[in-house]
């Protein structure tokens, strides 16, 4: 038995495979007791997991809503700033930082032909870049505190 359809078993059990693939897996299961056992175990495991999903703790939605409101109101002044065109010098410096990050990051080095590990590396790198970018954004934010203060006042007067 050459190719056991290991990673196809979950989608097979969940009925997600395209007809041709479903057919292929079904034929394999007829001849391979090992995979048949795996499929049965996978089905039981998925059913057990689905039946026993831990419930999250109760939450006071009224208070949660009030907090969300406060958060939104707090961000609205800043929001206006986000939509303004980024000043030329600032965008140039941001591009510079991104360039440095890209160079330091170097090309991705996948560890094998396994699609999961390759994507893991790429995703991890992307997430790391995002984190660094948000740090840059926070720094920019500090530099522009004065402008934000002004904008806050503008929003307050136009709304009030």
């Amino acid at each position: 038995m050459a190719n056991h359809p290991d990673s196809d078993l979950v989608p097979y059990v969940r009925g997600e495979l395209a007809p041709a693939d479903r057919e292929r897996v079904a034929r394999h299961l007829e001849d391979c007791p090992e995979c048949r056992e795996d499929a049965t175990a996978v089905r039981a495991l998925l059913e057990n997991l689905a039946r026993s999903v831990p419930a999250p703790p109760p939450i006071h939605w009224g208070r949660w809503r009030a907090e969300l409101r406060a958060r939104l109101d707090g961000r609205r002044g800043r929001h206006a700033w986000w939509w303004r065109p980024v000043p030329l010098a600032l965008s140039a410096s941001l591009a510079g930082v991104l360039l440095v990050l890209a160079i330091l990051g170097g090309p991705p080095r996948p560890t094998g032909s396994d699609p999961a590990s390759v994507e893991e590396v790429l995703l991890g790198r992307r997430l790391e870049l995002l984190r660094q970018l948000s740090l840059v954004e926070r720094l920019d934010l500090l530099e522009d505190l004065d402008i934000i203060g002004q904008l806050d006042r503008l929003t307050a007067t136009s709304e009030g």
Partner: protein
Amino acid sequence: MELSDEALCRRVAERDEAAFDLLVERYRERAWRLAWSVLRHAEDARDVTQEAFVRLYEAAGSFGGRARFSTWFYRVVLNLCLDHRRRNRWWRLWARDEDEAQGGGLLERQPAPSHDPVDQLGREQTMSALWAAVDRLAPRQRATVLLSVQEELSTAEIATVLKCSEATVRVHLHRALKTLRQTVERR
């Protein structure tokens, strides 16, 4: 006629507060459940859930409409969880025990049909061990399990949420279930 999530999201982009409230109503439970299941920390999950809706409000315009709103929003929640977890790793290790003590009870939803109390107890212990094993999975494997089993997303939808191929999702799920099986079979 009830508006679709996608239509509501487009209205949020035009600063329609009522549309935003409706989306909050539709998605707050799901966001809370997902954030809590990833972080297993009520305060952090609360923070992430609120932040996810703030991001929705701010970035509704960037929702392309090619994907379903639900997958887009799940992605926002998951990204915030990952970011939160990274920033607070050292703190979490410290606070974990305390949080687990407050804990959301396992097995509160849909108890398994069983008449034998001894059998039931053994079953609950097994399920607790199973979910504890889910918590110990590598983050991507864990995300695929939560999205598929808990949120009932298809492989294709999970691929959209995690921005990877369906083949990758299948590999993650396969490995996760293999690990989980070992947990059950060892008991």
